[in-house]
Structure formats: structure tokens, C-alpha cells
């Protein structure tokens, strides 16, 4: 279990512009400095928000990472929902889903209806 280092990778990435540049130029080299499982490394390399959420990455850290990847707000929420559907409940931390997966905003419901 290396959730600590998974989150630390994202903590560094979120606040360090040099790390952000390396993310684009040399992701493998950046990741190797952190003690991660294959599942965690792959989730980072693929930008798999759903799996990272299920693995227990703190939502605040994950939200910033999603913004870094250019993921729009409601897409970010949907990716987390898809993650729990595919991989099961959040495995660690305090950012578990408690609401059953539905949208709690008028704006989100309107978007779903427009799909």
C-alpha cells in the first residue's frame, strides 16, 4: 500500500511548475522517484481519475490534478462515478462517495438531461 507516495507525487506535481514540465517531458523519470505499485503508476500515466479516486487519493489533491489535465468540472465528477462503478467503493481516506452517485446541482442534472 503506497497511497502516501501516490498522493505525494500529486502534491508535488500540483505545486511545482518544474515537476509539471517533467510530467509532460519525462513522466516515467518523474514517477520512478516515488515508491508506487504498478496499479498506481499506471493510473498516473493514464490520468485515470476514476481509479485514483477509488485508490483513496484525497479529493482536493485529485481535483487539482484533474484541473491540471484540463478536465472540465462535471466530467471530473463523472470520472469519479465511473471509477466507483468499475472498481468498487473508495478503498481509503475520507473522500468516499456517500450520496449514491446522483448529481446534487441543478446545473449537473440539466447537463445529464441534455446528454
Amino acid at each position, binding site marked *: 500500500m503506497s497511497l502516501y507516495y501516490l498522493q*505525494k507525487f500529486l502534491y508535488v506535481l500540483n505545486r511545482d511548475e518544474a515537476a509539471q514540465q517533467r510530467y509532460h517531458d519525462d513522466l516515467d523519470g518523474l514517477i520512478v522517484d516515488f515508491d508506487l505499485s504498478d496499479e498506481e503508476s499506471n493510473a498516473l500515466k493514464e490520468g485515470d481519475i476514476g481509479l485514483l479516486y477509488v485508490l483513496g487519493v484525497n479529493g482536493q489533491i485529485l481535483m487539482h490534478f484533474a*484541473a491540471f489535465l484540463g478536465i472540465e468540472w462535471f466530467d471530473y465528477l463523472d470520472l469519479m462515478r465511473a471509477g466507483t462503478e468499475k472498481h468498487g467503493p473508495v478503498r481509503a481516506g475520507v473522500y468516499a462517495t456517500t*450520496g449514491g452517485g446522483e448529481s446534487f446541482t441543478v446545473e449537473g442534472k440539466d447537463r445529464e438531461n441534455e446528454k
Partner: protein
Amino acid sequence: MSLVYSGVLSHAPGITGRAHMVKNTAKRDEFYAKLDTQRQEIVESGAEALVVMAAEHFGNFFMNNMPAFCIGIGEKYYGPIEDPEWLKIDRTTIPGAPDLGVRLTKEVMQTVDTAYAEEWKFDHGIMVPLHFLTPNYELPIIPVNINCQGPPLTPLHRAWAFGEAIRRAADLVPEKIAVVGTGGISHWPATPDSGKINVEWDREFLDRLMRQDKQALMSYTDEDTYKDGGQGGFEIRTFIAAAAAAGGNGELQFYTPELPIFAVGCTVARFDIV
């Protein structure tokens, strides 16, 4: 007495970042107007520096060395760390108050063990309040972090003690000091439940806060807060510290659960300084 203002306000990133998505624009604009009222009140107080007691979100502090409290003593700060386009706040430099920060820190340390920092990259937890309270970034800022994110969290009674220590320290310096506590009440931010708000729990907390009912405020356990107010509810520590700094009853100037796109019950309040 040199504490001239104490209040609280919400800081969720959607307040600026998702403003363009809001359907209920009338309520949004009412909220923004109350934030501007708060800005005017701080200006009219004559405050020469603003202490922002915030709950940051792993912008500077991580579980490799997580302080219960930290006070900024830097000459300047940078923010936001988030994508500026995402937060809809331009990246900028914010003036600090290093000498004043050191004097406040020294006095706070007489009763509360606090870390201090000369470097600080502000995330939305501070940038959103500054966007409304000092939009031109003219007022020197002393950032404060209370650990509301990485359990084990700062105990509520220590947040109260910290607020009292800030008050005592502010009263010992000649400068006029304003303080705000910024966080959320019940909310489930950055999860699929974003937008969920427990209005009854919020109103009960705000009632206790406005009445300065310390005993009732201290009775929240982290387990109950997590169940009823979500992980975002842990940020009540910042509101509690602001109440403790003020010492007087509060006036709830604005609260609405009608902007869930902001992921929090939007709140503005001030306290009597007594």
C-alpha cells in the same frame, strides 16, 4: 485594542471558478454583494493587515510534516497554485507582513505551539477570499493554516485556543489587525457528492457560532462531523478560531444552500470585537 475586525466567509473554488455555470445568478450576485460588504467593513475598520485563517488543501503542507497550525511570516506570497483558468483568478504576488507576522507568532507561541513559514503558495482556500476582500492585493496578508485536511486533525479546542492567542497577540501590537476565518460548513467537495449540503446541520452550527456557545461548538466530534457534515465539515475549525478571536456575538449576514454548484452553503458573517 488592535483587533479591529473578525469575520468568516466561504472559500470554495467554485465561487470563482464555476461562477459562469450558475443558473441562480440572482442568488450568486447577492452572495457576491455580501462579500463586497465584508470587504468594505474591513476597509472601514482601518485594518493595516489581514490575517486569513484558512484550511489549505495540500498546497504547502503534506503528511510528511503536517503542522496543527502555521503562520506566514513571508515578505510575499504567490497564488493560486491551481490552474488560473480553472479557478478564474490570475496568478499574482501577494504582499506579506513579515515583521508583524513574527511579532504575532512570538506571542501566539506563548500558549499555542505553531509552525511558521516564510514561503507559501496560496491555493483557492486563501485566493478566493482575497479575490473578494482585497481584489487589488493591496492589503498585507498574514496567512494561517489550521489542519482541517490530513487526519489526525487539529482538535477543536485547540482551534479555539489559537483564535484566543491570535486575539491576544493582535492586541499587543500597534497595528490595526483584521481577521477572517475561511472554510466551509457541511460539504462534500471534490467528490461525486459535490453540491450536497446538510442545511439543518449548517444552521445549527451557525447558531452556536453566532451565540459564541463555546461548549456547544466544542461538542462536535470528528466522527459526527464526518457523518453529518462530510469531510468538508472539518473546516469549521477556521470559523471557530475567528469566533474565539472576536469574543463577541456574531451577525450572520448571509447564508444560502441555493448555490450547490459552489459545493458549499455560502456564508458571510462578522463578530463583535469585545
